[in-house]
């Protein structure tokens, strides 16, 4: 696999440690995202049948995943009848090649792209840029991180880690706005002028897809800025890129998801634009690229299949106490947070072996997920897979073996306990030596004179 060739870079713990050196910034990041979580809570509480809605969405997706081949074929047939060209890509590379070949045939080199996590997953921008294609992301947040030459740190709020003063500086450098001006309204207006020019001069528009309807062959794209519509309406060629799991059976099911998506994502009742693209305008060409990239493999796994239900709302990130305090980039994968941590190892176990451990398994993610993915259970299951397949370090493994031995031999446990509190020497979190990370910012618990077992034997044991 191509992805396997990446050399191991810094892991989540190291990157999170760096992020935490600036504590006021961590506080700001945490509060900003907690505010989004609170907005989500308020929106959810306005729907008395919220939990029923989540269950319904989960069941619809269950049906889709159980019959995916059928829905995909029906979708393809409908789309073709609508005059759309449908392409199939087995992996990221094929996806990028297909998109490039469509662009190449037009002879055009300027492209606008609205938000699509799939194209992030496939690193489409890098690929196209290497082929001399100039791609501009038109979602404001995405454009900001693009100008900064960074990946998004959040799937819904790509530049949530940027403060407005920093965006002011960035715009000053790249768009020539006056130095020191960080008024959000002013900066948005500046971005609008900048993006308008690109919209007017880019005859090719790439969009993502939020939902694809098998019954009608149409795709639905949800944005708050209307940038997908603007791009597509002004273009001669529309390329919509989607993972094969984006299908829903019928139009009538869309309401369930649209009600959940924006409420879960930002607390809005619905995204400002829910745009349906069914067929090209006269003279326009429309392409849909259906991408597998490991999805069908996951479909075959009972433990991890449900991850394919994800509708990319980002609620699991906003609620995640670890994500809020480590930042999206600490996950070193296109999709950060809890959902990223169960998707990434499926693509590359070696490179992403740290991610399922970047969690306390608190379970808040599974509780907010609008399609009820068992995220924290999957994190636990990934840990088992990674340890079994040898992706967990040998020191840890040997420590675990030693611990397992003592804990299955009560006499040894009891003796080693009385000799200076066994736990303090062997518990992975309490190993008492100068390098112990526990003690960096925390005091060690003090060992009592007697363990409970010893107390019991002295005071309670019935002869």
């Amino acid at each position, binding site marked *: 696999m191509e992805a396997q060739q990446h050399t191991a870079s810094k892991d*989540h*713990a190291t990157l*999170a*440690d760096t*992020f935490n050196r600036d504590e006021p910034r961590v506080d700001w990041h*945490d509060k900003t995202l907690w505010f989004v979580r609170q907005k989500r*809570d308020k929106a*959810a509480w306005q729907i*008395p049948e919220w939990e029923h809605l989540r269950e319904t969405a989960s069941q619809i997706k269950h049906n889709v995943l159980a019959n995916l081949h059928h829905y995909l074929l029906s979708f393809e047939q409908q789309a073709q009848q609508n005059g759309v060209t449908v392409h199939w890509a087995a992996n990221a590379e094929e996806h990028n090649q297909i998109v490039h070949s469509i662009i190449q045939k037009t002879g055009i080199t300027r492209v606008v792209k609205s938000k699509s996590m799939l194209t992030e997953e496939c690193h489409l921008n890098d690929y196209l840029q290497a082929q001399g294609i100039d791609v501009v992301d038109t979602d404001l947040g995405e454009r900001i991180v693009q100008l900064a030459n960074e990946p998004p740190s959040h799937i819904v709020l790509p530049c949530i880690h940027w403060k407005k003063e920093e965006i002011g500086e960035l715009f000053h450098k790249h768009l020539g706005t006056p130095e020191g001006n960080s008024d959000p309204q002013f900066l948005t207006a500046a971005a609008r002028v900048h993006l308008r020019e690109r919209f007017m001069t880019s005859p090719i528009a790439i969009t993502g897809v939020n939902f694809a309807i098998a019954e009608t062959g149409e795709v639905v794209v949800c944005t708050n800025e209307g940038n997908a519509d603007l791009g597509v309406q002004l273009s001669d060629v529309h390329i919509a890129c989607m993972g094969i799991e984006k299908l829903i059976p019928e139009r009538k099911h869309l309401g369930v998801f649209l009600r959940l998506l924006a409420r879960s994502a930002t607390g809005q009742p619905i995204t400002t634009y829910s745009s349906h693209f069914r067929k090209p305008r006269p003279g326009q060409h429309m392409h849909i690229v259906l991408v597998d990239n490991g999805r069908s493999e996951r479909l075959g796994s009972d433990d991890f299949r449900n991850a394919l239900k994800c509708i990319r709302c980002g609620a699991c990130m906003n*609620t995640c*106490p*670890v994500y809020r*305090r*480590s930042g999206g980039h600490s996950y070193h994968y296109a999709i950060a947070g809890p959902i990223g941590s169960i998707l990434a190892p499926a693509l590359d176990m070696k490179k992403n072996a740290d991610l399922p*451990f970047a*969690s*306390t*398994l*608190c*379970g*808040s993610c599974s*509780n*907010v997920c609008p399609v009820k993915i068992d995220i924290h259970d999957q994190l*636990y299951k990934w*840990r*088992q*897979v990674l*340890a*079994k397949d040898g992706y*967990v370090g040998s020191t*840890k*493994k040997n420590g*675990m073996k030693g*611990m*397992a031995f*003592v*804990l*299955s031999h*009560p006499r040894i*446990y009891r003796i080693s306990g009385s000799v200076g509190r*066994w*736990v303090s020497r062997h518990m*992975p*979190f309490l190993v008492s030596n100068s390098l112990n*990370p*526990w003690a960096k*910012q*925390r*005091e060690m*618990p003090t*060992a*009592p004179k*007697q*363990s409970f*077992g010893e*107390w*019991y*034997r002295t005071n*309670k*044991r019935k002869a």
Partner: protein
Amino acid sequence: MKVAIFIPCYVDQFYPQVGIATLELLEKLGVSVFYPEKQTCCGQPMANSGFEHLATSCNDLFVENFSGYDYIVCPSGSCTLHIKDHLHASANEPAAEKIRSTVMELTEFLTDVLHIKNLTAHFPHKVGLHQSCHGQRGLHLSQMSELVSPGFSKPQHLLNLVQGLELIPLDRTDECCGFGGTFCVAEEAVSVKMGKDRIADHLHHGAEYITGGDMSCLMHLEGILRRQRSTTKVIHIAEILNAG
């Protein structure tokens, strides 16, 4: 009713007073309690690190120790949940299954089996309740802030029965403290930051004590409190319910 208590390894070794309070409290409430002396651990430290497959003999030992009881009561939501979700024994799966369905966390045993409506406990202090995630989200000891569902809390119900105790409100009622087993050392920076933030919430509302059903979370918070030289202390819920 034949009841055994399971005292998790780190409680046994570091917080014997929690085990003692659990035992005394149950006896006060008229339960005759058995303590199988060969018990060690639920196996979670291995399993949460990905080494569930190394926990087999630890699991067998657990089944050997805890077979033949009507209930197994444990003063830890996390260890209880681990047993409930992951205890298996290839040699005696029916026994493991029985244990999985009869193991109970202390506060749920008090509210759901003993139906406790009053207590003699006396604890005249301002107390913050830390809802440990495994007890709350795993065992459903209380309503979860993420879900649109009616409010309830088993530990809070019990604390409200304690004379003199004033339960303080919190800004974030059920955010994780960052302990997370090996997470607390593997992800030291985030773990400590999470703990500091939880503590700040309790201190901001004037807590003299932070209580909860899991000594592991409290041990982590205690480590930070002591480093900060705070006068606020941690105390397991069993100690409060058994106080006075």
